[in-house]
């Protein structure tokens, strides 16, 4: 059991490392490749990642909330 836990913890830390490495790589790529910010008042680097992260996170939160509120049995309309 202890070995399993250690293996899981190891794979989780590897996964986190990969995510952070890719994120840094993409933001770093912005310094070289992105000519300017998409809108004049936005930062030039990593803006697409930030907007996606915030927006998709909000959409997922909204989905979970609406799911709790509006979920019904499959035969709801048949009854």
């Amino acid at each position: 059991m202890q070995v399993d836990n250690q293996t899981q913890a190891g794979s989780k830390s590897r996964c986190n490392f990969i995510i952070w490495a890719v994120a840094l790589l993409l933001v770093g790529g912005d310094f070289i490749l992105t000519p300017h910010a998409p809108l004049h008042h936005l930062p030039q680097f990593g803006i697409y990642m930030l907007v996606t992260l915030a927006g998709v996170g909000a959409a997922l939160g909204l989905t979970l909330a609406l799911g709790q509120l509006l979920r019904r049995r499959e035969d709801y309309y048949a009854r």
Partner: protein
Amino acid sequence: MHANILLVPGIILSGVGLVLGLMPTWLRRACVALLPPLLLIHIWTLPHTEINILWLEHSLTLLRLSSSGMLFASVFLVALWGGGLFALQDAAPRELGAAFIYAGGAIGICLCGDWITLFCFWELMALSSTLIVWCGGQPDSKRAGLRYLLIHLAGGVFLLAGISALAVTGTSMELGPLQAEGYAYWFILAGILFNAGAPPFSFWVADAYPQASPSGMVFLSAFTTKTAVFVLLAAFAGEALLIPLGIYMALYGIVYALLEHDIRRILAYSIVNQVGFMLVAVGVGTSATLNGAHAHAAAHILYKMTLLMGAGTILRQMGTTSALKLGGELWRRMPKTTICILIGAAASMGVPFTSSFITKSVVLTGLADADLGLIWALMLVCSAAVVFNAGGRFPWLALFAPAPDSSAKDKLDSNLDPQGITLGSMVGTALLCLVFGWVPGWFYQLLPYPGAYHPYSGGHLLEQVQILAVAGTMFWLTRRYFYPQRGITLDTDWVLRVALLQGWMFFQHHLTSSYFRFTQMEVNSRMRSYMLLFSLHGPRGILARSWYTGSIALWVALILASYILMYNFSAHAPLNTLLRFLLQS
């Protein structure tokens, strides 16, 4: 001039559709395989003239070639061709006939030049698409088709009201940008928005489309909503109301697709999501966003067809599209279908070198250039969130998720890929998704407005990789929150199917009980009247008894006296005169 009617592609297709079901099998197959490509050549070789006929003092323009209409008509013909070939395996002849009429209506709208002709083709589409839903053979096909028909007929009524108002006010009936004044504009806009799946009627897409057959949903996904987008582009470009409606639709598609467990309903919600994206582009109304809406509509038809053909293949082979019953690493048994679905999914997400990458970038760049920061951010999110419906979640649930029950596993022993022409149609549409992505110049030159777009710059590629990397990682990390679950999610159709229905039943109950109470009261009062009459005139009634002669004489004298008195008081006649005479004497 009337002989030229036979040159109108919409009329040709509708005419063939009417008799397609009666043809022998070999001729029907030949029509399905050859007519769409021949018509594609036909519309690109037609001279740029109009075909007009006179009807009730109105000049109807049955054919007018515009760059926008040609683009949409061409993609519709490709969709009819691909869908028709895919349908040959198991579609009923009447479904194929209805599909040809449906496509004829859509192409007729794209190539017509006035509102009356548009309305005729519009209603033709509504009726034929309902037939396609009814041919679905699913448990709820008939009722869903009826709901679909009601919604579209309601939309048709609004459209007709608007067109009639145009005619009454003497406005030109020519199909083109409308002035935002008078109720004709708003009625026509409302009628078009019904078909676009705009709120509060976005539910009909996911309600009706998945009830069609595997091939039926391929046809349905291509025509109705995109025809509405075409008309919005032609008449309502720059209408600001479309922006909030489009944002709602884009978010609605994301939220409801995530709560859904049926893979075809996920794709239906994804259609609403992408049409919302197009509506925003139309609403902003710059040449870049309008070009983007044209391009994205065309790309969307192709990749959604690919995905729906994949979903249809799964339905044909497994007998279900519920993710609760699918899975079991189906990709091992249908590798060719899996590749096509993955290409379609990549195109839907905007992966570089696919069609949607080059079209979404036009819209997003147009929004950024117009300095619409909030709308740009929202559309960016909606574009990224496709990973959570058609792009990532759909292939994962359909092909890669583990099997929840043994019935699905039992079917995994054989190769489930379709064969021959069915596979060919799916591969063909998947290849088109790639061709447009690889050679965007071909695609961009079909767009109606001038503009130079360069999607394959290093910066743009990196932007898209950023979006996909973040969205993909979020999908993978949060996927356990969105495992398919039994149940449905209430939508705005609750108002029609429950609130209005129960309200009507409540009203009907009270109306009926009031009627019964009134009837009872009437019966009771009538009975009481009869009882009273009976008590007076019945065998023992007071008026039925025998009377003494003296008593009768007394009553007669009393009645006469009272009569004389009444007469005198009323007319001031002889008795007064007599009394006055006696007193004076």
